[in-house]
């Protein structure tokens, strides 16, 4: 007991109290353990690289269903019909959607764009800490990448919303609610400078695929110029790229949309793309899953071409279908621009997709091959064991199917109108793990932007025709010798529609061409209900009319003979030429004004 008394009286109690009051300062000093500190980050090249990667990450726009956003946004235009309840479908339908503020796409696209802006601003400001420790050329290149990505975000924001909030430095907390909208022209002028600075520092052929290139910076400048109809700048920027010789057309159009074809990047046509990692199966593009028809086991079709898309493709004589003697309404896929069949499948086409990762029953082959059929209740599926097509009853894409799944097929109440996409289908890749980078800019667009600018500037010369014909030649279409500006303008617009289908340019185009109301006020129709009773040709309006010069088909005479599935009638008004700003932004910052009509 003595020991106990000694211990307790002698020192335990005093020690406890003493120690407890000491070193509180140190005890309470706890700093973040698993993230870098904001005060010192970005102070050397490696850290700037990490921050820069973060900007690219913000520009990986694949929000809904692992499908590139720009492809989904294309479904808000005239050339696509997507599953009825998808937000992009509601946008496309305008008042009949109804497209209202609060639509998931129009809300999220805004935040998505500004996430890139915010990260770019942070890196551009913070990297000054690391400037001294980085080789000047490297520093300039890293800065150029950040500048270009920021311009890319602003470009898209302006296409979607018009005048937007524009800032180029991290906002201080007191500046959060004081921003106003800056006119598009002002923003574009500022971005020209950024892109010039970037282009001077960027490489034409960066060692790492996926990084922005010099050509992309200049191409983006041209797009911005087109947005404000500054054709001189667009012509000059595209000409710089063309003269650099850094890019050319890939000899094969289909190769642009397969993994192997893009890896080769023959002609270096691909200038900027959204990448996917090979090492993680979950980060992949599901766009092919999203448009393979339901007669494929395991397909998820929800996004389809419309008749307006199909009818944009010329016949092989270079004439529009209503003008060409080669067009056969009973066999509409014959004698057509090759890009038609490279872009989409028509009934009767053979489709091959890899629907399983490993060899799977019934034929112990990961690929399914079948004849795309909508006109009978049968599926024609290739039997890999017997080398023949098996005929299976119960076709979910049958236009008169009794199967309950019918309504979600390539035809049907919430489905498509008898066509499905082909672009990006790659039978060498498992559809749920498609790794083909999504193209964001390629050289063909540079050529067509050049041609368009020169036409609009009324500077039509051989270089203009060469540019257009280079694109047409690859598709096997005859060269044009047209010199009439309005006919050439029509041709360039047609080329853009068929060359870049589902590549994310259509919304940009119809808005700047001012044809939203013309193309977006119509009923969506598709293939013939009965192939033996072909519908009448569409009307393209009187010669020289806006409708004619923009190849806008009109189907009143043939609706009853076409697949019109859900009778989707689109009703777009003036206000639909721009998306509404998210209501929350206006609520939080009363200085912001909504777009007209919303």
């Amino acid at each position, binding site marked *: 007991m003595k020991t106990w008394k000694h211990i307790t009286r002698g020192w335990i109690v005093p020690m406890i109290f003493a120690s407890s009051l000491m070193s509180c300062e140190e005890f309470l*000093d706890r700093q*973040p*353990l698993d993230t870098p500190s*904001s005060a010192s980050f970005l102070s050397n090249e490696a850290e700037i690289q990490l*921050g820069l990667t973060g900007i690219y990450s913000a520009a990986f726009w694949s929000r809904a269903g692992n499908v590139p956003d720009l492809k989904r946004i294309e479904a808000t235009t005239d050339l696509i019909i997507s599953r009825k309840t998808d937000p992009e479908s509601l946008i496309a339908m305008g008042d009949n959607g109804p497209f209202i503020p609060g639509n998931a796409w129009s809300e999220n696209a805004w935040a998505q764009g500004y996430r890139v802006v915010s990260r770019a601003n942070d890196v551009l400001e913070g990297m000054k800490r690391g400037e001294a420790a980085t080789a000047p050329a490297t520093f300039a290149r890293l800065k150029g990448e950040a500048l270009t990505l920021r311009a890319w975000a602003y470009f898209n924001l302006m296409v979607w919303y018009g005048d937007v909030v524009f800032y180029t430095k991290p906002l201080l907390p007191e500046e959060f609610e004081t921003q106003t909208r800056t006119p598009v022209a002002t923003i574009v002028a500022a971005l020209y400078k950024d892109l010039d600075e970037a282009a001077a520092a960027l490489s034409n052929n960066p060692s790492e695929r996926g990084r922005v290139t010099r050509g992309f910076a200049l191409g983006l400048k041209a797009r911005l110029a087109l947005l404000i109809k500054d054709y001189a700048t667009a012509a000059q920027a595209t000409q710089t790229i063309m003269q650099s010789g850094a890019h050319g057309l890939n000899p094969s159009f289909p190769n642009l949309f397969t993994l192997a074809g893009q890896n080769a990047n023959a002609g270096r046509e691909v200038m900027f793309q959204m990448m996917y990692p090979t090492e993680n199966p979950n980060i992949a593009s599901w766009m092919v899953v999203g448009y393979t028809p339901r007669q494929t086991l395991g397909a998820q079709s929800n996004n389809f071409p419309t008749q307006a898309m199909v009818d944009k493709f010329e016949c092989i004589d270079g004439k529009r279908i209503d003008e060409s003697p080669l067009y056969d309404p009973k066999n509409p896929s014959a004698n057509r621009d090759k890009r038609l069949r490279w872009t989409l499948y028509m009934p009767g086409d053979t489709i091959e997709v890899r629907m399983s990762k490993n060899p799977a029953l019934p034929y112990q082959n990961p690929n399914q091959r079948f004849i795309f059929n909508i006109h009978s209740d049968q599926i024609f599926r290739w039997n890999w064991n017997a080398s023949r097509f098996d005929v299976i009853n119960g076709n979910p894409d049958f236009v008169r199917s009794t199967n309950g799944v*019918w309504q979600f097929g390539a035809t049907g109440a919430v489905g498509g109108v008898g066509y499905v996409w082909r672009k990006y289908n790659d039978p060498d890749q498992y559809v749920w793990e498609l790794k083909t980078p999504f193209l964001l800019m390629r050289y063909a667009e540079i050529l067509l932007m050049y041609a368009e600018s020169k036409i609009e500037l009324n500077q039509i010369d051989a270089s203009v025709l060469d540019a257009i014909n280079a694109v047409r030649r690859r598709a096997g279409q005859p060269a044009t010798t047209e010199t009439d500006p309005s006919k050439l303008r029509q041709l360039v617009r047609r080329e853009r529609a068929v060359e870049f289908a589902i590549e994310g340019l259509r919304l940009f185009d119809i808005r700047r061409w001012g044809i939203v109301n013309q193309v977006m006020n119509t009923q969506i129709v598709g293939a013939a209900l009965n192939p033996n009773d072909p519908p009448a040709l569409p009307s393209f309006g009187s010669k020289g009319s806006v409708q004619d010069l923009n190849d806008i088909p009109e189907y009143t005479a043939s609706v009853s003979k076409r697949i019109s599935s859900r009778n989707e009638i689109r009703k777009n008004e003036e206000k639909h030429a721009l998306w509404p700003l998210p209501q929350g932004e206006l609520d939080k910052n009363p200085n912001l004004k909504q777009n007209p009509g919303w």
Partner: protein
Amino acid sequence: MKQKFVLLLFLSVALVLSAHAQRVVKGRITDEKTGEGLPNVSVVEKSSGRGTVSNTEGQFSLSVTDPATLVFSFVSYETQTVVVGNRSEVNIILAESANLLEDVVVVGYGVQKKANLTGSVSQFKQEELTKRQVSSTSQLLQGLAPGISVWQSSGKPGADGANIRIRGIGSIFSGTGPLVMVDGVVSSMDNLDPNAIESITVLKDAASTSIYGTRGANGVILVKTRRASGGGVKVAYNGFVTQQQATNIPEKVSAIEHMELSNIAQQTQTGNPNATVFPLALIDKYRNSPVDNIEVFDNDWVKLLLTNSGIMQNHNVTLDAGTDKTSLFTSVTYLTQQGLVLNNSFNRLDIRMNPDIKVNDKLRLSGVFFFNQSTRVEPAGGSPEFIIRQAIGLPATGPAKFGEGMYGDAGQSNRRNPLGQAENSGIWQQIFPSILGKAQVNYQPIKGLDFEASFAREQWTPNTKRFQRNYQVYVPNVPSKTYDFSSLYPGTNSLSESYSFNYRNTFLAQASYGILKEKHDAKFMVGFQSEENVTRSLGASRTDFVNEDLPFMNLGGANRDNSGGASENALAAGFGRVTYGFADKYLVELNGRYEGSSRFSQDLNLQWGFFPSASGGWVFSNENFMKGMDFLQFGKIRASYGILGNQALPENYPFAANYTSGTNYYFNALIIPGFSLTEAANPSIGWERSQQWNVGVDLQVLRNFSVTADYYVKTISDILLRKPIPSYVGLSPAFLNLGSMENRGWELSVTYRNKAGKLKYDVTGVLGDVQNKILSLPGVPYLDEGLLRSAEGFPLRSYFGYKAIGFYQSREDIAASPRTFFTPNPGDIKYEDINGDGIVNADDRTFIGNNFPRYEYSLNVNLSYGAFDLNLFGQGVGMKENYISGTGAWPFHAADFIPSLLDMHKDYWTPDNPNATFPRLTPTIGVNSTNSSFWVRNSAYFRLKNVNLGVKIPSAWMKKAKMESARVFVSGQNLLTFTKFWQGFDPEQNNNNAEFYPLMKTYTLGLNLKF
């Protein structure tokens, strides 16, 4: 103990011999409730003052001088005075005192006599807590005392603990749950078996909780576990078996109804009366042919999926052993609980050992050793909640299962089948071991002075393993009437595992001194406490396992990922208390805590704060002027005021700007790491403050009627808000100290006890209300979280939307109504043009309800008659709204699968059914899903929470079985519910979108044995 008894006997004999006219009176004192012998009861002869205490069997023996009167008294029991007369044996049954004011109540860092309390405190004893048989102890607090809102949001095994809010919601984004201390250490009460708990104390007002400083703002719950009584060896077994069922599951439509209604919806949408989704021929086929599971299906997914037994078992053994020098309390519990869907279960094992060693009169050592391990199992392919939502949402036409291991595609293009997910998708398993050790030393050098020091460490290492395997999807082959293999779902198997290592060190040193001199009763206490929390984690995953029966990480394919993280926080505080009572009439108490938190900036010197409180009480029943008023046995008025802090932020380092890892990109198709600033920073972030006024009264009227009432105003200021910033800033908002709100409430608790012959009963009624109001949100017009809006002058998180005023009945009606933000059709919900500007738009939205319970009440009735005892416990909420949306609320709605609709949806609007429950039937809910009062329903309810009927086995049988006592009981939970809420949905569960785990209705058979 035997020695003591012999000694007592010897003494009695000696007394008998030494004094003439003295004789020995013997007897046994038993507890009225349990019928067991009561030890340590003091027995005093009134005239001589001689006395003794009863032994462990409750027996006593005392020599008395005739005529004798004996006084039997024991803490918290009613004192009895008995005239002996000529009896030589006096057997006494002592009843627990209705006047619990003599009770000792556990308070922060100490104990106090209930009569001397000046704060607002509720305490529950073990016997109140073991009346209900539940799997999570937190559920037991529901309805026991006013001002404590308790509701359950899930019935999932292992996740069915209740939400507890004391006196309203105390913060917006920081912690709102009370601080739970088990034996003085922050812990969870759900890990404890109620049989191992001695008492639970809830500290409600600022005076009681300010000693907990920065963590007392939301109230404090103190749990004290049992310690050995030091009187021999006592063993008890408590066990029960429970059958659980869902309280409510909505009823669905049949396959044919699904098809017909789909067509009607399509017709309504297109305006084409011949439109079909399901061809009439197909519907006819369904009508005319039996279900063959090849072409014709009619699957009741609810029945197919809710097939698990729902059996719960709990077995607890306690051992109370030792002497008054050294003793050990041990409790071992095993709980196992099956869920509603297959592969969903929970089990828990805990072992508690609480040793006490009295080294000498001055030095005591005590400890806690607690081991607890729980295992939760769920299907790997989908959470039970998601599976249940699919059960509620999937159409009956979807093929479910064709044979063992052969699943249909459920009518889904992606072939996701909840039956495959539940039965055959592998399992997710979380094993959660935790271990706690606490050592404590108490030293009393002189009477009244007590030094205490303790150190406790709790360490928990949860690990989760999820292996998702493929199940096989088949498709019917109609001509051959067989099934063809179609594919594996999901196609890729994957394993992910995560481990984390966490510990909490708590160190406490305190000294207290009490003086009791004549009319003065003073106590002083000072102390120091520190706490640190550290967590580290590691996770890994791989896919493509060749052999699905060997789900171990190194057998996986090349797709691999890993992650890890670490964080920590610390608190340090000094605290003190002074209490002073004069003549048991005037009571004063002062508390204070000076506390520092690592969550705030040290550079800006923002870590420390001081949180004081003061309270006073006046026991007016002890005043002279009350002398003659015997009906009032006790009366006290209390008042308190205090300031508290709240540092329970969801982040550990809110003062620092965060660069987030994982913003990766894929140059050269490789994953290249990136870091980004994703959040705005506010280095000058500080404490949330909460101040509270409380006035209360405690009354004891006659011997059987007691009343406690309180009124309080709690004001919370410097609330940490993530003030929403425009999304063009591109960052998530930082916390700012902005805004204030108020909780104003009152509480009333009334107990009546009495007996009529052999029937003994007590009834406790509890009623309370708290009203929340946001006082200010500077610079923030409102805070929106989905459909919830918080704005000045309104209760926190109220439902916000349009006010529905019926349906558009016709085109004429539409033409005559104000324009609106959408193009309406007859049968669409009509919204009120609140501001009367002729157009219904965003400006017409208003506050349409709130789901925080108001006017909570309960009634707790205990009856006993002979060997039988009965507990009836009902609990209700008088005012509450609830919003229901998504699958289950809306016909044909599920964002992620092809859905059906519920039976109740058949009452949809048509011109012939103008007063329908639902709007016109369309294939998608469309504009009718706009947030509006249409989807807000009254979810007030009254629920028979518990019925427990027990019977004691006659003691004669017990003797034969060598047992002390045995009780068999049956009980049930949630047996009856009275509500106007939606059929099929539980009024207690908020914001229901059909992705939920229903609460349980249970039937229990149980046994209590004592040896």
